[in-house]
């Protein structure tokens, strides 16, 4: 369900305002996220789409305060009505895996290699819900069945290395769902999977999301994945959201020149023999915060004003946003 269709009085699951993250080391400073505002309604699936270095994973990690000490984070981060920035270690330990859970691209590094799958799930239940060992073990079995792992009972006593890639990913999802989180954060969880397994995991995540009514933030670089799972898509470039809107409208007619370029450069059926449209150049090094539009050096629709200050994220129609002065001008003309 899209945010605009939700009743207005419901508190959003995520409220992110003016998030800035920069990484400081002795040699250089990287401004990874430069002012991100995002809202997520309960039960909504938002895809953050972007290329490497766009700040999508950093944004996701900031929601759980998982960034390293070298990261300087500013801005308002509210998740499930709580101020994440203000939490101490003890509160964070309750919060992570309780209200909010995260799944990763590589289950082999996210799961503990020396404990069985069943133990890792049960441990989460015991830690967060204070359940007894036997209750927790029973829950672990239920969860493995929920994520559709075949012969679940036998798999409880399997170690991560004994499972195939697809099953391992399902086991990680089971750990994440152990305490029925309100919000699931997913960092490219299907990128490393084979095509026939990727679609299985995507369909599983979608059905679990509907079944449990979770909000999901799904980070990906793959437009096809976003098309399969998202309600709403936010496209990131150089640490900023450059376009946001319902998945169907955005895929059918992107507004921002970068989003247009990204869709045009993605190879899909029916492009054989045609020359691919490309985005010239490369994303900016984020040593300095870009003044003006960060996409301007690569933009085919560039005009002089593009360098005068950072464009605002402005509405286009009832439910879409774009950070481009030319799109804003078109929107203004449309209203007249």
């Amino acid at each position: 369900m899209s945010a605009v269709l939700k009743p207005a009085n419901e508190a959003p699951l995520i409220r992110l305002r003016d998030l800035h993250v920069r990484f400081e080391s002795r040699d250089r400073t990287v401004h990874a996220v430069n002012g991100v505002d995002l809202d997520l309604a309960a039960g909504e699936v938002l895809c953050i789409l972007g290329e490497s270095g766009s700040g999508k994973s950093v944004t996701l990690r900031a929601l759980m305060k998982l960034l390293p000490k070298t990261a300087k984070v500013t801005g308002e981060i509210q998740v499930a009505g709580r101020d994440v920035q203000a939490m101490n270690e003890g509160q964070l330990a309750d919060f992570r895996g309780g209200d909010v859970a995260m799944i990763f691209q590589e289950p082999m590094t996210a799961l503990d290699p020396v404990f069985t799958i069943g133990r890792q799930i049960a441990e989460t239940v015991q830690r967060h819900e204070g359940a007894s060992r036997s209750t927790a073990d029973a829950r672990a079995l239920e969860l493995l069945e929920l994520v559709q792992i075949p012969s679940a009972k036998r798999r409880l006593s399997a170690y991560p290395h004994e499972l195939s890639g697809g099953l391992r990913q399902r086991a990680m999802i089971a750990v994440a769902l152990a305490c029925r989180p309100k919000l699931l954060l997913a960092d490219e969880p299907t990128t490393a999977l084979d095509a026939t397994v990727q679609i299985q995991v995507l369909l599983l995540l979608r059905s679990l999301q509907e079944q449990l009514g979770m909000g999901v933030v799904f980070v990906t670089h793959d437009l096809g994945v976003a098309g399969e799972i998202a309600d709403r898509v936010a496209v990131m470039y150089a640490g900023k959201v450059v376009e946001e809107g319902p998945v169907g409208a955005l895929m059918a007619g992107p507004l921002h020149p970068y989003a247009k370029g990204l869709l045009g450069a993605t190879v899909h059926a029916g492009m054989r023999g045609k020359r691919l449209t490309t985005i010239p150049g490369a994303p900016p090094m984020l040593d300095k915060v870009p003044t003006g539009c960060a996409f301007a050096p690569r933009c085919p629709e560039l005009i002089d004003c593009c360098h005068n200050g950072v464009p605002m994220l402005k509405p286009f129609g009832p439910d879409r946003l774009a950070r481009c002065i030319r799109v804003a001008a078109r929107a203004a003309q449309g209203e007249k």
Partner: protein
Amino acid sequence: MPPPAPDHGGAAQPLLETRGLVKHFPIRGGLFGRQMGEVRAVDGVSLSVRKGETLGIVGESGCGKSTMARLLMRLLDPGAGEMIFDGEPVGRDDLAGGISLKEYRRQVQLVFQDSYASLNPRLPIEDSIAFAPEVHGVPAGEARERARELLAAVGLAPAQFARRYPHELSGGQRQRVNIARALALRPRLVILDEPVSALDKSVEAQVLNLLVDLKESFGLTYVFISHDLNVVQYISDRVLVMYLGQVAEEGPVDEIYARPAHPYTRALLASRPSMDPAQRRTEPPLTGDPPNPVNPPSGCRFRTRCPFAEAVCADVPPIAATLSPGHTAACHMALPGSGHSKAGGIAA
């Protein structure tokens, strides 16, 4: 820039043919490192690459496509089978009309997926590109001259880039260097093993356009190995679908994508995420992961995941049935009289 080696057999003769290529890797373990089993990475693959075409090889992890790339380059010795390059048996210079491995490796080059690991971090890129020609006897000055021409050909201005080290380049630029290096010996065949898989989408499109241009201007033939069905469809003339070390289906690209005959090819194509949220899938085309190539299933290797599997599939390995000229599928359903209840039912 010197011309490539001359053509021998004329346009009709395949540039590269393999017959029954096999590569098994032993698994050692236990006391005294006894052999415990073997990974049947490539198990009897016959293919032919025509002059001037792009042959796409597609499949999931463990299907043997990367082992295939290394076999085709002869970085690995095949356990059995033959390779014939433009009519000449490869590595059989003892025979009249054979081609030596050294000469073969001059005419065939490989581009890897990992653009960083495949370049020497301590050599400026110009020297990396000039290295192979020098090994093959080109004087240093001339080799460097050639390297600069190639850098320009792949879209990296030599004055700006020639003396840079790999870590000073982006992923897309490094992959351009790898492509330039592969072209330095003026090969006739270039094997591309997942060349764009590690790149961002906008850079991927740049490199694909470059590959198309270079094929034209250098008169190349490509073997393009990838797991990305959309990219393979874009770049290939013919496509080979591999499953657990064997060829499941082979044919012209339009034929394979419009009329896939093998149940695996159909499932693979149906697994592509749709960019249109109105056409979302509700059921996955296949369940489970690809089986382990250590102990592949008997008979047809796909039968454990195939919705149409019958008794005959477990007993008899399917042979390739011809559906239309050049389009073959190794499935009992495609072969009339195979004993499968749907035999002949999917003939195109």
